[in-house]
């Protein structure tokens, strides 16, 4: 099988299988999980093949641009990571026997196809196509439990926010066509200057929206209404991460347009800082992980803005494994205990030891504890930041500290020691079975996927450490940027441990700060309602009223006025014109009556009339003669 065929198969196979599962619905309920796991496994194998071979395919599509896919080092890494995480998530989901398995697995596979196209796209139109399909699958999966009020609405919120940001890609496409360089992603930096700014702006907005960076971060919070496997795949490892990927892919374009790289770097850094703080203030485990995702992707965006592609790619891969792991654990506890509130999950890690160990590994990795995944990758990014802008470095370091804080919060709470009787001693306000009936068990399929992901979370930091770092940088053409020195690595390890210790102390004294504005996601929800949603609805209703009462009434009034005018014209016709005709007839008749008057039948009167007429005639003759 040639590599090109493998590339086509990689994107077509999940798409076709996914669509078939969705369309056959309940008829394929039983075979859905095995089929989807097999397809995902095939996808992983194909991803490995194309990652090694690096093929490229192209087919004419639309607007003079082609539908093109290509695998290079960056997309190879992304494709393999995403395929692996998808397989593990689907294995986990197969352990969940629930309604609508066919629809669920179908949508997940369609999503996988869309992500693979996004990661390998070579033209803007290919990218935009897959980008939007990802968003649609996200909507369908967040609102998966459509019978529940609120879940489809949360999905709509997520879809519409990302769609707003996606408009940037449409603008970028138009600007690219005008800029003369065409719609190929690699050629975008070559567009003419004015248009290049527009392209960069469009791409940046779209990427920030998809990666849930500020000011678009709220949708990720709403997306947590979806099932946990969805959160694990779409909203940690794959879809949101594609925002970061896009910026890594187009870092040349950002660099060529000076301001765009700066904007991306600062957007990433500030998001990492602020959303890290938001994460610390969360009480719901999934909300905390969502804020954390946004913050960690801030590091990837920061890396893209700084041009540190290999650091960003390494952090992407490490974060994917770690965050998917943590979300799946949250899902496991949710189905086992019926809650995702941290206060109720106190000590949950001790109940199922294997799950607990993987949770520990995940939390420690998230905190940036050496030698686990996110420790080294974060430092790679920060090293480049230090070289280019100390201010960014300070913000990044603070954000790293905050990530240790929120990861520590999770770690310490779930591993807290409990009194002997586990059900007693719980806070009355947040008990078990609050959100769904817990099954009190975690199946072996779920535990298997958790173990594999935990291994990834432990090991993927190697991508940023000397044995693998240099080959990766070489493959990604990123040999020029700075790397982290052993001193920096040691310092950050110490920082992580110090913050963990501080968090432990604060938690024990229940003094971990929780300001309302952070807990409420920086007030983004209220802001969106007041500034966007309510005005749009008001405008829509006002225009609808205007349409009915003014525009339509004008048309109806024209019609009624025309009928009135016709009636008046009709009256005028009857009274006026016809009246004139009738008057002429009457007058003529009157004249006729008058003309009859001399006919009296009296002979002497006829003589008088004759004499009168003769006299008149004589007078006339004399006068005219």
């Amino acid at each position, binding site marked *: 099988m040639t590599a090109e065929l493998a590339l086509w198969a990689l994107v077509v196979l999940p798409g076709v299988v996914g669509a078939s599962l969705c369309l056959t619905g309940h008829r394929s309920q039983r075979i859905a999980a095995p089929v989807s796991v097999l397809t995902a496994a095939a996808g992983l194998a194909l991803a490995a093949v194309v990652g090694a071979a690096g093929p490229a395919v192209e087919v004419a599509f639309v607007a003079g641009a082609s539908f093109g896919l290509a695998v290079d080092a960056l997309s190879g890494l992304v494709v393999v990571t995403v395929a692996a995480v998808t397989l593990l998530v689907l294995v986990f989901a197969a352990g969940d026997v629930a309604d609508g398995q066919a629809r669920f697995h179908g949508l997940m596979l369609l999503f996988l196809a869309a992500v693979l196209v996004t990661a390998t796209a070579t033209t803007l139109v290919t990218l935009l196509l897959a980008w939007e399909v990802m968003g649609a699958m996200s909507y369908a999966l967040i609102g998966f439990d459509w019978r*529940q009020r609120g879940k*489809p609405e949360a999905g709509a919120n997520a879809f*519409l926010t990302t*769609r707003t940001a996606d408009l940037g890609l*449409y603008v970028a496409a*138009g600007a690219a066509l005008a800029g003369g360089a065409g719609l190929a992603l690699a050629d975008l930096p070559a567009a003419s200057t004015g248009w290049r700014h*527009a392209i960069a702006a469009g791409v940046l907005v779209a990427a920030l929206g998809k990666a849930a960076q500020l000011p678009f971060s709220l949708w990720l919070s709403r997306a947590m209404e979806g099932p946990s496997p969805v959160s694990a795949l779409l909203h940690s490892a794959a879809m949101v991460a594609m925002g970061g990927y896009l910026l890594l892919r187009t870092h040349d374009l950002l660099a060529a347009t000076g301001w765009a790289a700066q904007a991306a770097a600062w957007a990433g850094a500030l998001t990492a800082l602020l959303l890290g703080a938001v994460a610390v203030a969360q009480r719901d485990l999934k909300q905390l992980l969502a804020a954390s995702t946004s913050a960690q992707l801030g590091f990837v965006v920061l890396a893209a803005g700084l041009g540190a592609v290999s650091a960003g790619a390494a952090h992407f891969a490490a974060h994917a494994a770690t965050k998917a792991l943590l979300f799946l654990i949250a899902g496991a506890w949710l189905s086992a205990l019926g809650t995702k509130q941290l206060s109720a999950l106190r000590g949950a890690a001790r109940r199922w030891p294997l799950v607990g160990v993987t949770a520990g590994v995940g939390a420690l990795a998230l905190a940036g504890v050496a030698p686990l995944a996110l420790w080294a990758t974060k430092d790679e990014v920060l090293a480049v930041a230090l070289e280019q802008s100390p201010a960014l470095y300070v913000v990044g370091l603070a954000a790293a500290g905050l990530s240790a804080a929120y990861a520590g919060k999770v770690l310490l709470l779930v591993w807290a020691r409990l009194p002997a009787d586990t059900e007693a001693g719980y806070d009355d306000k947040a008990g078990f079975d609050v959100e769904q009936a817990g099954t009190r068990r975690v199946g072996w399929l779920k535990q298997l996927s958790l173990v594999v992901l935990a291994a990834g979370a432990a090991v993927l930091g190697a991508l940023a450490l000397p044995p693998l770092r240099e080959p990766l940088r070489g493959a990604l053409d990123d040999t020029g940027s700075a790397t982290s020195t052993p001193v920096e690595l040691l310092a950050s390890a110490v920082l992580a441990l110090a913050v963990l210790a501080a968090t432990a102390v604060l938690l024990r004294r229940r003094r971990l700060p929780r300001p309302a504005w952070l807990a409420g996601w920086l007030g983004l929800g209220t802001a969106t309602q007041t500034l966007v949603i309510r005005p749009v609805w008001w405008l829509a209703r006002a225009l*609808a009223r205007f349409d009915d009462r003014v525009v339509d009434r004008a048309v109806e009034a024209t019609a009624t006025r025309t009928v009135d005018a016709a009636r008046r014209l009709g009256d005028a016709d009857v009274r006026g014109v016809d009246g004139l005709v009738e008057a002429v007839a009457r007058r003529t008749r009157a004249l006729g009556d008058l003309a009859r008057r001399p006919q009296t039948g009296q002979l002497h009167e006829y003589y008088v009339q004759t004499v009168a007429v003769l006299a008149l005639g004589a007078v006339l003759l004399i006068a005219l003669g």
Partner: protein
Amino acid sequence: MLSLLVSFPLVVALGLLAVPRLPDPTARWVWVVSEAVVVLAVAGLWAAYDPDTSGLAFEEQVPWIPGIGSSYHLGVDGLSLPLLALTAVIFAAGAVYALREQQRPRVHAALFLFLQTTCLGLFVAQDLIVFFVFFDLSIVAMYFAIAGWGHGDAARSALKFFLYTFLGSLVLLLGFIGLYVAADPHTFDMVELSAATPLADRPVAGGLVLTAILVGLAVKTPTVPFHTWLPPAHTDASAVGSAVLAAVLLKMGTYGFVRIAMPMLPEAWRAFAWAIIAVGVVSVVYGALVALAQTDVKRMIAYTSVNHMGYVVVAVGAAGLVAADDPQARAVAVSGAITQMVSHGLITGALFLLAGVLYDRAGSYDLASFGGLAAPAPQLATAFALGAFASLGLPGFSGFIAEFQVFTGSIAVAPITAVALVGILVTAALFLNAFQRLFTGPTQGHSTGFTDLRRSELWSVGPLLALTIAIGLLPRPLLEVVEPAARTVVELVGR
């Protein structure tokens, strides 16, 4: 060949009318079979058509009214062929849907076959009088379709539709007469007028004639502010009537832009380009916002038609901005406009047929009186979801292909048209809102006891959605026909 194609439905219609005692099932199936014949014929035309030859294919010309220079002139090119195919497919879907028609199916079939003749004839007409005859006859046929088989306030809506669009057609006729008078020698032939561009050196006269033609076509399209006949006509028409009205009749207006206005009045068109773009952008944004506020699903879909046709107007307006000196971008815009005509026809036709299912089961289109409909009717939910996402321009459907080209081409030529992107955002909001209110949440109201799609409904809507997806994923077959025609139009407008 073309005359046969155009007159075949009429012959079948006359045959149906001539046999008053024909049993209803036979009448319905006669219609379906004749539609199959038409679809096959158009498919044959498509296969035999060579996009690279310039000029018309399958041309037929016979002198008709020599005193006014009007001949019976038919022909197809890359502009008309996609619309012919659209007409064939939509009417076929309507015929399958109408297999459940209980009210006078024989007369219903005859009327729609007659309507199909007028639609096919208009898209192949190459003479302005022939065009006008079919234009007006289609209005007459649609009037009877709405008044005779509609519901609600059908008589009033039909009358409003008739008077408004008929008045528009008279203004259009004024424009045609203007072209005739200015041409030397006087003629109504489209090919000759496009070649001669009679009002090339008379900006004032050209402007007046173009205004008349634009007003006439704008009423048909419809653009803001001439659109208020559309919502009542759609709400009160039957499912098949609405589908045909939205999918085919509205395209007559936009087809007129690219077939008549742009090639025959290039100088005036270039002068009016910004005004046309403005009207288009307003239609896009206004249509989307007013649709968002609707609580009646058919009225909502009607306003989204205003929005979608607005994209076409923006694109053809942008094609007139020759100063930007970017023929490739302008050709992309026009190609997007034509693709949008086909795409909107397929998608909105499907959506109106699905709305008809709601009325058939529950007698209501009100969004608030349904809920959780996906439980009793999963097939309807899937079909509606596909239609809704197609209509909001999601990639994988033909709407994306069209809107991508429209925006890419228009933004490249006139960056201010990026304002119209708000339209795709608002459309997304309104369709998700409608889908959620109808299908998700607890099952309540009219949703209880709702029967899912029947076979005739599935087999009418299914092929339309399948075609939408086919064009969305594999657009080349359509674009190979459309792109050369778009390039020709752009060249003609640039003279």
